[in-house]
């Protein structure tokens, strides 16, 4: 019986192998990254609509081919626009690492299941779309053992991880608000870090 995986443990295991990679996240589980990251200047927020972070991360990877770009995506967001798998595979970004944290539900709206939640093979979809390499995990030890090697692969790489849902039921106005930088603040900081001038 596989061990159920907590999103935080995925982040911690990845963090050991991050190196200088640029990291962006989406979804409920993605918020854990700020508790783990030790290099905030290379953490960038790109979201603005559900499903929008995925193509944004691709744009970043295409624009910065010498940097590893890591996306922690969610299955609900990916389902908003599955065609993006073909878009990413078509451009073949060697520096793109697409993690999918699959909790099988819309955790932020109370835990309703995503369509066909338990039967979708996201890594299989990515493989069929043309990703260079795909992986699927439902055991933490297995993930911890392999994530370092995966980060040395040539992209685009897709890594699907089944995680425990962290369902939120409180109305949004009653939820704890985590202080954070705005999207444009994170972009400006990243640009300073990389010496990018936008005129």
């Amino acid at each position, binding site marked *: 019986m596989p061990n159920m995986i907590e999103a935080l443990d995925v982040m911690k295991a990845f963090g050991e192998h991050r190196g200088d990679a640029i990291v962006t996240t989406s979804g409920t589980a993605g918020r854990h990254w700020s508790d783990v990251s030790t290099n905030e200047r290379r953490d960038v927020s790109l979201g603005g609509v559900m499903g929008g972070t995925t*193509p944004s991360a691709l*744009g970043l990877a295409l624009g910065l081919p010498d940097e590893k770009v890591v996306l922690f995506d969610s299955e609900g967001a990916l389902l908003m626009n599955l065609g993006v798998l073909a878009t990413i595979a078509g451009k073949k970004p060697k520096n793109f690492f697409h993690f999918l944290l699959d909790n099988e539900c819309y955790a932020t709206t109370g835990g309703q299941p995503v369509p066909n939640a338990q039967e979708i093979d996201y890594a299989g979809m990515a493989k069929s779309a043309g990703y260079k390499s795909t992986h699927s995990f439902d055991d933490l030890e297995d993930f911890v053992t392999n994530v370092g090697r995966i980060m040395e692969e040539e992209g685009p790489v897709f890594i699907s991880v089944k995680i425990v849902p962290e369902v939120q039921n409180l109305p949004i106005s009653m939820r704890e608000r985590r202080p954070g930088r705005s*999207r444009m603040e994170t972009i400006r900081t990243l640009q300073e870090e990389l010496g*990018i001038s936008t005129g």
Partner: protein
Amino acid sequence: MVQEQAAVLKPETMIEEFEKNGVTHVVTIPDSETNYLYELMLEQPWLDVVPISREGEGMGVALGLNAAGKVPVVLIQNTGMMESGDSIRGMALDAGFPLVLVIGYRGWTRRGKTPDTAARYTEPFLNAFGINYYFVENDADGSRISDAFEEARSTRRPVAVLIGDEYHGFNR
């Protein structure tokens, strides 16, 4: 007919405007009226074409490219622009970066009412989002494309270029 032929907007003009304004990437879904432009873009060594699967992706890809210091253009048809409504809001307008949207004005006609609802809703859509637009119909209008880039840079907002080429449509 002679006047119609002379009035076309040449794809080469669009390419020149892109190069003049430092465009590095064109994020696009081809449509039936931009085929030759697409081929011409692929031939440019300074330009990277990013084919997308759905128009809404385009705003996100453009935001990521802008964050990376590149100069993207999103080239889609008016139908796709309308499909992209929430992405235009959340990924372009709210993000606040310069972005030129080149929009094929499907259904546009200079001879009165169009039966095509894609054309009928195009300008009301842009007005509802508060996006300024420049209408380009032929080569003589080409400099308006640079005007759109200048406005996008100075306002850090999306600005649209509507391509109303009803006779030629960037085809051979």
